[in-house]
């Protein structure tokens, strides 16, 4: 359990730091690196970084967008044809980021397994 929590926190902190230097795929890099050093088991491999990044992106989006009355978020939601609901757009954004992080972590896990003998 503690490993899950530390992976969760490290993924977010690392993603936040890397996003200062790297494009959007910083979240994939963060999840991959974290999965190498704090390997998890079974579904946690995917879901811990998934929820970590989902939370990170969603909160970040909310902070930016709410400060501007969600003006642009409503328009982008309309543009992407998911209604005019900014919260839905925030959720979609979070899920996309989480998914990208999750699959990167699965890949990392496979590398870790390869390194083990047998």
């Amino acid at each position, binding site marked *: 359990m503690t490993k899950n929590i530390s992976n969760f926190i490290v993924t977010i902190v690392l993603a936040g730091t890397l996003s200062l230097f790297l494009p*959007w795929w910083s979240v994939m890099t963060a999840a991959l690196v974290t999965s190498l050093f704090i390997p998890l088991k079974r579904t946690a491999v995917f879901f811990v970084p998934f929820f970590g990044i989902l939370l990170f992106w969603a909160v970040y989006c909310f902070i930016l967008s709410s400060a501007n009355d969600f003006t642009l978020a409503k*328009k982008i939601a309309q543009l992407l044809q998911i209604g005019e609901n900014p919260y839905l757009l925030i959720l979609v954004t979070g899920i996309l980021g989480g998914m990208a992080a999750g699959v990167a972590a699965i890949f990392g896990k496979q590398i870790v397994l390869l390194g083990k003998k047998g």
Partner: protein
Amino acid sequence: MKYLKLLISFVLVVGVFYALNTKLGAVPPLGKFLNPSSGIWQNETDESITGEIGIPGLTENVTVHYDELIIPHVFAQNEHDLYKAQGYLTAKHRLWQLEFQTHAAAGRLSEIFGEAALEYDRTERRRGMGYGAEQAIAFMEQYDTETLGFVQDYADGVNAYIDQLRPEDYPVEYKLLDYEPEAWTPKKTALLLMYMTKMLAGYDDDLEYTNMLRLVGKENFKLLFPDFFDRTEPVIPNDTDWSFIDVPQTELPGSQAVLDTIIETIDKPHPDNGSNNWAVSGARSVTGNPILANDPHLGLKLPAIWFVMQLSTPDHNVFGATIPGALSVISGFNQHIAWGETNATRDVIDWYKIEFNEDRTQYKYDGKWKDVTVRVEDIKIKDKENYKDSVLYTHHGPVVYDKNFKSDNERSGYAMRWIGHDGGNNQKTFIELNKAKNYEDYVDALQYWNAPAQNFVFASTTGDIALWIQGKFPNKWEGQGKFLMDGSDPENDWQSYIPQKFNAYTKNPERGFVSSANQHPVDENYPYYVFNDGYETYRNRVINAFFNSKEKFSVQDFRDLHNNTHNLKAEELVPYMLEQMDVSSLSEDEKEIYREINTWRFNNDIDEVGPSIWRQWYGALYELLWDEFNDENTALTSPFTYQTIYLLKHHGNHPFMDVLATQDKVETAKDLFLIAFKEAASQLKEIKEEKGDYVWANYKGTYVGHLLQALPAFSKLDIPIGGDRNIVNATSENHGPSWRMIVEMTSPPTALGIYPGGQSGNPGSKYYDNFIDDWAAGRYHSLNFLQSNEASSAIIGTQTLIPMDHD
């Protein structure tokens, strides 16, 4: 097994990365687009209007005060700094639009959109847009390096802004389409001016007329397309004395039109592009000060075509509407004068048939062979190999149509002679107008203006009003260029130009007002040939009638006139149709509609049904009447509304009235009225069933559309505003008054202005479209004309641009 899992997970990672990093069809690359650190969430911001910003190349501080409309009031210490600041600020608020418009002008949209835009790009390049821009730069390099220097300053300012941007700061459209801004150059300013030239002086029907002439013969052509209508209220009043003109019109040669069949012609600008302007003298003004108004009618777009600014140096102080990409104020006022433009449409595009030699390296001219020059247009296409289009140039201009473009004739083509290709120094006119102090300065400034020809209205605080029709006009022989001409005959070339001082103008006319609304420039007494194919005939008469209706006028009268929705066109035909039409066969539903239009008072207000009935009725009538000219295999055109109505009323039994589809019957105008009315009634019934009513505001559904094909998310839809084309309030579906300005010539002038948009180009800003509701309601903003570099109570933020060393 391990390796397989590794491989599968690797493929998964790559797949997800690819899917989120790549633009797939219209869907932007979602990872790039939506991530909060560099995606669209970074565009959820207002304008930054305080603080200090370093700009390389500035010589002194420039202060920028913003009022609550986000109009920048710029105080620079010299002109170089001023235009740097203008470039910087325009980019700051409108970067994507600034660049996109010049990409569109240059025929470079395939770079952004891929192959779908190739036909468009080829058309713009064959039209010679890039060629024309290069001519303008070459002219400035040779004759006016001062102006070119200012254009370079503007470019430096734009680039100073672009250089400060990180990818997360790019306007949202770049993120949506997945590309990046490039450096701005003086050529882009020239391209923008070409874009305006095309928009306003890029319309012609010469090739269509050629087909028409072949089809209907000379006599009928004259009846359908007369040089002058039966009644003219020209820009320059009818009684003007032209005896001072001592250069005659070019003599008529024995030249004949070339009666080719042309199947298809290139895209043309919107036929409604036009404008109103007027001014009253002090004697006709309630306060004793002249008053001036201008409202250019253009496509209603977001971001708006106009960006309002105050620009000042210690030597001048000017306020008004600018166009992103061009320097200085285009329609505005300074401490001494006010000015505005309407389009002076005149036929400044002519077409020549070119005969090539075997390998198309030479063409026939004056009994000899002359070399063609080849300009290779290298068109970049997104995700594809470049397309190279070789365009042949003759001394007339580019051969637009040849075997490679809209024609299959191996040995001939059609070359375009367009004033837009002549270079010239349009930018200088505006720079000088901005500084003009009186009538003489205004006339001096105009001499540099070639195209698009404009009716420049003028008023000064010292009491002068004037209107010059300024452009570079070929001195044509009677009828020259109405039809396709033989390009090998020197007599068909433009022989000379009308000397600038003989351009038509009026200064302080006796009637006490000047006005223009794209109508005929002059009456038949003007000694030069002035044919054009798009003269307005309604707005001008409503405006002039208004100024003849009473003695003195106020700013409120000007506002009322801007918002005037009187439909003179309908008034001139509907009563006649109602009187003539046989109503005995009308059904109950049709009778209801008959009653509705019978009580209509010819005002296109939002809650009326009359305008919708009129549109349907006249639309059906026009189609029925000109069914002869509906041929998919030939490029044809139909007569203008004014002449159409004239023919319906005066030639009701002409063979043209007959409907071709009914072989056993010969229809007259009277029959057409009824058939068209029934068609309209059935259409209106359908609209009512579908939408609930056909009240004008809903029927018309005016919208201001985003430059990207009116993406609904970034557009403003269903705007309740009256008016229509050919009405003083010229708002139709997506076209109309794009800037409304009224200036009273107090000292300093006091002004009102508004446009359908907002100062910000960012769809995420509340200043993106915040003017539209007030504009639709006919309201104005008072423009805060600051007289000194001090933040008045109207100022909500001040930003200082400070000189910074180059890195």
